[in-house]
């Protein structure tokens, strides 16, 4: 089916486009972006008042399959992605068994082909069994389709192993993603170490634990020439470290989550387990520093760290609850409301953080609307009023800290390879 998207504002930062245009899609690929296209053989959609962007990519998602299918599956997670405006997701390897071998990479890709709504880009483990001891078969996984390596959920505690991973990953030109925390500094921690933790009597998870690991990883990236990507950066000091490292040409990139730039540790004040995540929500000064880093180009990508957990698992004592929140179906609205309408950045920069930013890090030929590219498209309504209703989520899990939030702007249509996989234009949300 060929599609002609008419009268929209087309925003493609990778091609320097931001203006009223039509987009013609033929055989699942972008055929043309120009004003006033006519094509009789295509289904025409009038998207006046809406924005057409390259498809958004969430480079940090937990799909929980294999092993924890009661929380999420590849089918439900990719449906949630489509509903949230994402045309592709990179899934983290902390499954059961972990994605630490070619066969598990192939399983994930097969499930995604069979049951997925949007493409899945698997991330393989750095170490066998995610145990932090020996390198996993990174080459085998890369050949099978892994897009990066990470022991996410756990940091790579051994500096020696991280050095080897950064060196070895150069063969495949793929990045190593680190979940940065120095384990001995966060023992027992459940919330950001600061006034809120002290008042609530909860064990602290200090920002310096992240900063120590970010510094180590930057130094190792410089020494090895490997590419390091800092997952869900949460502190102002880490942003400073990344900014300075980039300034001297070290191969470091980083992502920030919507919850870290929209919330602070005050959200925990009623022991709300929906505000418990790792890394924890930080202080207001950290949040402001993250916004500054998003605005000045230090941050390369916005990623959700979508971490589904069953309601019963979260409905326990705060310290016993698992870390993590879902994000796929709220992220784009939070970005539009807080970053664009909030005056932090323009729409084009926001689109970059969700498209060419993550695509470049994962070496994906995605994230732009150039002729011949896969026709992956996210359509936004900048003025749409959205109220977060967790019960309406496509995800199996509803553990969101944004329940009930009213926001301005949201995704309305998701197109993958020329096929409309989600269309909310007529549906109230």
């Amino acid at each position: 089916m060929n599609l002609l998207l008419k009268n929209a504002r087309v925003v493609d930062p990778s091609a320097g486009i931001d203006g009223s245009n039509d987009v013609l899609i033929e055989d699942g690929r972008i055929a043309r972006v120009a004003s006033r296209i006519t094509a009789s053989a295509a289904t025409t959609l009038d998207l006046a008042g809406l924005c057409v962007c390259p498809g958004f990519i969430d480079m940090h998602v937990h799909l929980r399959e294999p092993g924890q299918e009661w929380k999420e599956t590849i089918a439900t997670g990719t449906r949630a992605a489509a509903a949230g405006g994402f045309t592709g997701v990179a899934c983290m390897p902390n499954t059961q068994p972990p994605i630490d071998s070619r066969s598990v990479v192939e399983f994930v890709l097969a499930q995604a082909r069979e049951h997925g709504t949007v493409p899945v880009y698997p991330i393989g483990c750095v170490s066998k069994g995610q145990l932090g001891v020996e390198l996993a078969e990174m080459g085998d996984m890369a050949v099978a389709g892994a897009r990066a390596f990470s022991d996410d959920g756990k940091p790579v505690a051994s500096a020696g192993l991280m050095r080897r991973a950064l060196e070895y990953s150069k063969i495949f030109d793929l990045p190593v993603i680190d979940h940065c925390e120095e384990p001995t500094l966060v023992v027992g921690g459940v919330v950001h170490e600061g006034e809120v933790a002290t008042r609530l009597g909860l064990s602290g998870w200090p920002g310096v634990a992240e900063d120590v690991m970010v510094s180590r990883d930057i130094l190792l990236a410089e020494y090895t020439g490997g590419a390091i990507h800092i997952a869900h950066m949460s502190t102002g000091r880490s942003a400073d470290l990344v900014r300075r490292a980039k300034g001297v040409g070290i191969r470091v990139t980083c992502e920030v989550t919507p919850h870290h730039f929209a919330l602070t540790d005050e959200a925990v004040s009623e022991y709300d387990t929906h505000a418990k995540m790792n890394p924890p929500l930080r202080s207001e000064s950290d949040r402001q520093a993250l916004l500054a880093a998003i605005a000045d180009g230090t941050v390369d990508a916005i990623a959700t760290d979508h971490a589904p957990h069953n309601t019963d698992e979260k409905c326990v004592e705060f310290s016993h609850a698992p870390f993590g929140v879902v994000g796929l179906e709220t992220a784009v609205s939070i970005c539009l409301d807080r970053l664009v309408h909030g005056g932090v950045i323009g729409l084009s920069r926001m689109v970059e953080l969700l498209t060419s930013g993550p695509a470049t890090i994962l070496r994906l030929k995605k994230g732009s609307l150039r002729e011949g590219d896969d026709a992956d498209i996210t359509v936004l309504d900048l003025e749409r009023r959205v109220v977060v209703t967790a019960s309406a989520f496509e995800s199996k899990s509803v553990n969101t800290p944004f329940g009930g939030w009213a926001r301005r702007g949201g995704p309305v249509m998701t197109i993958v390879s020329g096929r409309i996989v989600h269309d909310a234009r007529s549906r109230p949300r």
Partner: protein
Amino acid sequence: MKLKSPHLLGIEPMTADEITLILDTAEGFSDIAAREIKKVPTLRGKTVVNFFVEPSTRTRSSFEVAEKRLSADLLNFSTSTSSLVKGETLLDTLRNLEAMSPDFIVLRHSEAGAPHFLARHGHTPIVNAGDGAHEHPTQALLDAFTIRRRKDRLAGLKVAIVGDILHSRVARSNVHLLTKMGAEVVVCGPPTLIPRGFERLGARVTYRMDEAIEGADVVMMLRIQRERMTGGFFPTLREYATFYGLDASRLKRAARDAIVMHPGPINRGVEIMGDVADGEASVILDQVRSGVAVRMAVLYLLAGGDRESAAQER
């Protein structure tokens, strides 16, 4: 005057007037212990569940005595945290307890926020008998009651709290209570056991014990848990005792009529030396005595009573 909340979750959300109400009401209950028949009919027909998910001897005994003296029926339900983690969830336990229609649940739990969890998910008034490192409101109330009896006031007193502040719910509740009532509070301990941002709770922080107790009207010592040593917070108990133990010579720095408190159980020779614990300045057993009266007052007020009718009940 009545209490605003149906629960007693902590001192932090309370007003100075509410604290005064509880202390004044406790005065009315304190002489019951001296009577031949140590019982009033106030809570006759009411059921109190003492739900203890962490070992406790003195707090549970104190609540039990208070409940019995108020003529309540009580049910003791104790379990270990580990069995709750592995088996039934706290929410399911709450639902089972509530199916027996209790009028109050007194909860002791090793995790901060557990009483708030019960208050949010249940419909029974909750009394926090200590939650993790968060609050221990009835301890702070009985401490205040004890101080007030000795000093006739709380406002303007200088109170030093010494020990493991990081893990102490007693320290947090006392700082909230004493600062609300106008006392000046200084907390003291090794920097490894003082949590970040503690001064924003309203207390001054020092790492030097001599400075903390200089001129203090009240010296409150906290129990040091032996496992803190293995946790790497300080090298040895011997060294801890050298820097933060209260002995008679150190106590001389405090005000001449200073009182020494301890929530118990005490570690003789570690945070407090025997001669001080047994000495004239010590009010440690008065604290235990006050505990019963204060807990009677709390249950009475949460049951909807006011101070005037408490006087009549007597």
